[in-house]
């Protein structure tokens, strides 16, 4: 997921460097501010936590079928240090990875910092912010963080004119979904074990108020409506792959109520897609909410 140098065109890496630089300056200031308030110096702690994330790569978790994965850490850092300190620590990790370990490019550093230190950390923190810390929200955070930063990376490559066909994109996204799931499971396990050994180092996360949650729901609604409208013009990667491999020759689910992500017979096309998306998201939310209540 670390984009190497040579793949992004100058406009793309320049824009992302220009976006990331002020963002890093901002989180650096935030971290200093919270430090003077809380009185406990955090910089040495952040450094040691960054080294911990590096070292955590040595601990291999056996996952199904003989494959193994390791912690990537964005969500774990966000839960323990808070989002801005986590973003700063991830930035430091990415800088060292690029210049010392050739993991990710130097010019592409802005892109990698943007994808993993900002989008990744924010996406990982979002579910915890919305629902408080629970097994399900941390799992969702870990998965979301990897999928979001992976999707950003693929998008940036595509913007740079790297011709990735729908099938290549589909495979890429599939890999990210799998890695994301593994990251979620590992983050949950790691947090449990940290909680047992050192509960005082995990701050409490109270879920945000009902009104704030409503605002988030509204903006998600806008995004879905807009996104579905744009996206319905282009077929998605997985579908394309399935069609190519021959999985989709005679789909049995064409008669399902939300087939093709559209609610048939409710008016114009864009409304159908948006409504179908909305119903899907509501179902997912309901399942998550029920799961979290039952914790």
């Amino acid at each position: 997921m670390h984009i190497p140098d040579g793949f992004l065109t100058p406009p793309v890496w320049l824009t992302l460097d220009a976006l990331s630089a002020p963002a890093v300056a901002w989180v650096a200031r935030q971290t200093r501010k919270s430090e003077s308030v809380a009185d406990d110096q955090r910089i040495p702690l952040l450094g040691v936590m960054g080294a911990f994330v590096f070292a955590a790569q040595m601990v291999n978790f056996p996952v199904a079928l003989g494959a193994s994965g390791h912690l990537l850490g964005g969500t774990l850092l966000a839960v323990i240090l808070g989002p801005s300190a986590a973003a700063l620590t991830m930035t430091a990790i990415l800088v060292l990875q690029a210049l010392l370990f050739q993991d990710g490019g130097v010019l592409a550093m802005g892109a990698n910092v943007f994808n993993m230190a900002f989008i990744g950390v924010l996406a990982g923190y979002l579910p915890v912010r919305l629902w408080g810390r629970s097994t399900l929200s941390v799992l969702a955070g870990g998965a979301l963080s990897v999928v979001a930063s992976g999707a950003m990376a693929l998008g940036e490559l595509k913007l740079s004119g790297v011709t990735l066909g729908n099938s290549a994109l589909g495979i890429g996204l599939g890999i990210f979904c799998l890695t994301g799931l593994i990251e979620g499971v590992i983050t949950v396990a790691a947090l449990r074990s940290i909680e047992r050994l050192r509960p005082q180092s995990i701050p409490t996360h109270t879920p945000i108020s009902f009104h704030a949650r409503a605002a988030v729901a509204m903006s998600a609604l806008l995004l879905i409506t807009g996104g579905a409208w744009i996206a319905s013009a282009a077929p998605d990667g997985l579908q394309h792959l399935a069609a190519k491999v021959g999985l989709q020759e005679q789909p049995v689910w064409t008669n399902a109520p939300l087939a093709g992500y559209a609610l048939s017979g409710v008016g114009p096309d864009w409304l159908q897609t948006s409504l179908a998306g909305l119903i899907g998201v509501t179902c997912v939310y309901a399942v998550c909410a029920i799961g979290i209540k039952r914790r």
Partner: protein
Amino acid sequence: MRTARGKLTVLLLFLILISLTPNIPWLLPSAAVLLSLRSARSMLVRALLILPLSAMIALGAWWSGDGVVAATLLVKSYLSVLAVLAFNAVTPAQDWIAALRSWGVPGALVEVLQFVHRYLTVITDEARRMRIAATARGGFRFDAAAGALGVLFARSWARGERVHRAMLARGYNGKAL
């Protein structure tokens, strides 16, 4: 530190040059410049190590029907990595990290970088010892790996607090390092 700043500037300019080059024939002069450096020549094989990832992306591009572009990308990423490796071979990390500060990189980031770099080997060694011990017992099971991660975290955290207290005792005021 001033030389580290110079080397970092040269590295950036060189990488930008590679990034701006349109195709493989035009990359030859840059390759020749790199090969004239002894530090780069000793890294020719190590630079191949990052190729799996680049090759995967390039393979995606090639499969989608653009062989020439894929090859150019592969060569570009190889040369870029070679340049970074050559830079690394002649510049100690603490030097270029210190040079970043004079470029206006926020002090908090520079300090975190210095700490991560300082404790990287210490904590990674600890993790490696844990892994060797686990291998001797027949490898990590999932819950054992989670436990190891927790222990590693707790030890790192305690170390961070200890280090900070020691630094305060020696007059660290949060800025100077």
